[in-house]
């Protein structure tokens, strides 16, 4: 019986990275009581994807990144597949560079995220331009990218605490 509870506890803990990422996707679209916040909302789900791919890729496989992208597309109103493709691609690349991103200081991790979000925003802009044939205003996009990069340490700090408390014993 003890073994059953132990396995259940362990299984639930292993779901934390995926569940937290899905929660971040929901928090991104919630109607916060701050006017126009939605316009410049930092990409919380991308922050979660980046962090967990760097630190616990065993609990954040590429299928979760794909599902997170689909959820983001469904909620945000973007064409289905845009975020799914970008998140899958981001996971693929980050996983191969994780030793560099996560193996040095926090500043390197932070700069890695800034670079990732910049490249993904650029790719998203181009994909949407091709799909819609119409250019999106650049200023909010630029502002959102900068804000996302600056905002990174806060959710990151929460993820670090969560990793240490819930997944630290492993």
């Amino acid at each position, binding site marked *: 019986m003890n073994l059953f509870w132990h396995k259940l506890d362990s299984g639930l803990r292993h779901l934390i990275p995926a569940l937290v990422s899905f929660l971040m996707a*929901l*928090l991104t*679209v*919630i*109607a*916060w*009581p701050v*006017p*126009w*916040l*939605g*316009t*410049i*909302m930092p990409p919380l789900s991308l922050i979660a994807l980046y962090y967990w791919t760097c630190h616990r890729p065993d609990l954040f*496989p*590429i*299928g979760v*990144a*794909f599902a997170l*992208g*689909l*959820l983001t*597309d*469904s*909620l*945000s*109103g*973007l*064409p*289905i*597949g*845009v975020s*799914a*493709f970008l998140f*899958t*691609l981001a*996971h*693929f690349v980050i996983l191969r560079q994780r030793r560099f991103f996560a193996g040095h200081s926090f500043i390197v991790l932070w700069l890695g995220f800034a670079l990732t979000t910049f490249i993904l925003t650029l790719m*998203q802009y181009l*994909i*949407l331009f*091709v*799909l*819609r044939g*119409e250019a*999106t*205003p650049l200023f*909010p*996009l630029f502002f*959102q990218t900068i804000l996302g990069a600056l905002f990174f340490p806060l959710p990151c700090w929460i993820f670090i605490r969560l990793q240490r408390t819930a997944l630290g014993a492993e």
Partner: protein
Amino acid sequence: MRRPSSYGWFPAVSALTWRTIPYRFSSAFFLILSLVLLVFARAQPVALSSFRTHVVDGLAPVLDAAMRPMAALEQGEISVQHLLSLKTDNQRLREENLHLGEIQNTAIALKKENNELRALLNFKVEPGLSYISARVIADTGGAYERGLIVTAGRTDGVHEGMAAMTGGGLIGRVVEVGDWSSRILLISDLNSRLPVVIAETGDRFILSGDNSPRPKLLFLPRDSSPIAGYHVVTSGHGGIFPPNLPVGLIQETDQGKPVVVPSADLGRITFVRLVDFDLKGGAFNPIAVRTHSESPKK
């Protein structure tokens, strides 16, 4: 000497290697799958919208529950603001009350005159209205979209094309409907095009969203010169919305270009009213035809 393989003509691989094959190919599988989705979204954008509405429907209760503390927080903030501005508000309301008294007298006289003229012209009155009030549970803003998700869907009588309004005026229209939730495309969205008219001059043009808070004007007549402060209302062309729904006021940008400031504060919408103008029905129907709900949905 090399040992003969136990897998027939397959090269000899260990059980561990076999187990890692799905992991090795999962990256390629999901990358290809997402690319296929992307191409499919380009070719058949409508086909995937039902997938989207199902996902949003499924998550609507979660979003709604998450919005409760936000609503309480906002209510608290509003209460504090009201308390702080109590004295000035009181003074302003007294002055407004005097002014409104004068307007009311004028309105009564105009209404009487209007009724007489309508009777004279055998005027067909606007069709009966039905409306549904709904709470906003998600602001799908971002840098690419201007939209909202609300807690009313097909089961409440919502259908595509319904007008989304607040006390200020028109804010957008329903573009996707699930069983329990709907998505609204705001008039400021890049994909929004709305036939409108300047109330004061009668000049018609298209209000085009550009993801900024102030949509721009397209197809202005050459002799038209929109003046800041003029009212913009729906023209009724296209048959989606009836004429004369308030949309906003004209304002000039720093470059002197006319833009429209929406009457409703698009950045801060908590409740919306989804209105069915029943334009297909056409005939006069003074009583709400279908759902008629005064109170916001809980």
